């Protein structure tokens, strides 16, 4: 196997260059599984749709000049009077469901990724601090984490949003508060192991600053479990945000996420108009499944205990 890769990876002088970098090894391990490759491609497509939603969606569902109330509650694959094709039907206000899903995906993914990244930075640095300094700082931070984790996510988010009110910024705050403890706990566990290794001792002997040791030496070696937590927690954040929006305390009606679209269809459920909540739900499901599958494969690849 190595012979084959070396012949491909020759540089111009004919000298073989080193191929087995950790990153290449990781990429090869990851794409070994067909399902994981498919999940990765699907995730890329979803991200593409979310980023370029205004350019690829057939209509702008929130442009009141385009939306026609005559088109409301049309079933999938119907054509409106002015010739627009509604592939997935329309909702109660006559908005094209496909376009609404694209825009909703944008909001859902945005909220999920933003809260995931902020929570990672906050929880990650607190966890690293706890592991590196130990002693009292460790005790204080980890007790706060324990308290935080003993409350269920949905309850904390409910009460926070009841106090803070609606809004994108507020839901991100609530999701960060719910999630940071997971990151802190994960990174602390791996940093505790790394801290006792010789290279950290060597760095300490070189009299490097605490900040340099923590971020340049400790952090890169604690990243693998962190990456897994990021994917899983992002999927969790998207799901939680949809749930909160469904309960009517998440995002405002002006910035509809997939959860709100599903909630909109609730009232049409009993009259067999299934598509209004069915399709946004499928979109939400596919998004969460692909992220979870990618995270699952990452966990298998990055777990040193399961190395072949």
């Amino acid at each position, binding site marked *: 196997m190595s012979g084959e890769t070396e012949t491909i990876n020759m540089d111009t002088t004919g000298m073989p260059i080193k191929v087995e970098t950790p990153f290449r090894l990781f990429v090869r391990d990851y794409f070994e599984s067909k*399902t994981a490759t498919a999940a990765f491609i699907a995730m890329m497509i979803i991200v593409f749709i979310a980023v370029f939603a205004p350019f690829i969606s057939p209509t702008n569902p929130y442009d009141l000049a385009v939306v026609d109330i005559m088109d409301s509650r049309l079933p999938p694959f119907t054509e409106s009077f002015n010739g627009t094709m509604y592939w997935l039907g329309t909702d109660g206000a006559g908005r094209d469901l496909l376009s609404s899903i694209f825009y909703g995906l944008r909001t859902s993914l945005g909220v999920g990724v933003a809260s995931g990244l902020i929570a990672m930075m906050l929880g990650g640095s607190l966890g690293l601090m706890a592991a590196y300094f130990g002693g009292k700082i460790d005790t204080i931070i980890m007790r706060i984490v324990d308290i935080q984790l003993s409350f*269920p996510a*949905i*309850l904390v988010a*409910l*009460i926070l949003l*009841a106090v803070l009110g609606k809004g994108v910024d507020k839901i991100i705050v609530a999701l960060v508060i719910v999630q940071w403890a997971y990151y802190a706990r994960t990174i602390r566990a791996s940093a505790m192991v790394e801290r006792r290794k010789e290279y950290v001792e060597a760095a300490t002997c070189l009299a490097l600053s605490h900040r340099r040791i923590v971020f340049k030496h400790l952090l890169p070696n604690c990243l693998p479990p962190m990456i897994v937590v990021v994917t899983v927690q992002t*999927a969790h954040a998207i*799901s939680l945000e*949809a*749930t909160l929006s*469904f*309960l009517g305390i998440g995002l405002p009606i002006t910035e509809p996420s997939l*959860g709100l679209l*599903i909630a909109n*269809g*609730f009232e049409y*459920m*009993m009259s*067999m108009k*299934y598509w209004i*909540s*069915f399709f946004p*739900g499928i979109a*939400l*499901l596919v998004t*969460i*499944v692909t992220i*979870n*599958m990618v995270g*699952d494969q990452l966990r298998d690849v990055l777990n040193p*205990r*399961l190395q072949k």
Partner: protein
Amino acid sequence: MSGSILGFSLPTFWVGLMMIMLFAVILGWLPSTGRGETVPLFGIQVSFLTLDGLSHLLMPAFNLALFKMSLVIRLSRAGAKEVFQQDYIKFARAKGLSTSRIVLVHVMKNIMIPVVTVLGLEFGGLIAFSVVTETVFAWPGMGKLIIDAIQNLDRPIVVAYLMITVLLFVVINLVVDILYSVLDPRVRIQDVKS
């Protein structure tokens, strides 16, 4: 495994809606919402002793169970993957034990501790925090109580609810701790020594 990812990822409220759609609206087999007929049991009205009440129970119960099912699948898979690499499994194989005995006795016993811990905690959550399912199915339980209380700013109810929840979790944790020593004799031996 992919099935468990699906169960893990399915948004609870959406599954609830789709179940109402399929079984209540299209097929008409099960009632969509509510608790159904009740009978008194020791002076308390309960619904799970009547046929009508049970039919009301079916969909919310399955909806709540879906997530826990996939959780248990994942936990036991992760545990079993590690246990299968252990020497005593090889030894059991070498001894010529049947696969079912190895899986059901040797592996099962060793992966039960995390499963029981998580299930215990999740059981408390099922009683206290199933806000979403109870909202979708209009089930008059504790989750519906708390969200109604939050929306009505009914603080005494919220406080009382939190107290009951704490008590519930303390009791469940105690039961789980007792179960540990039943499941794993090593836990008991260590406790005696210390």
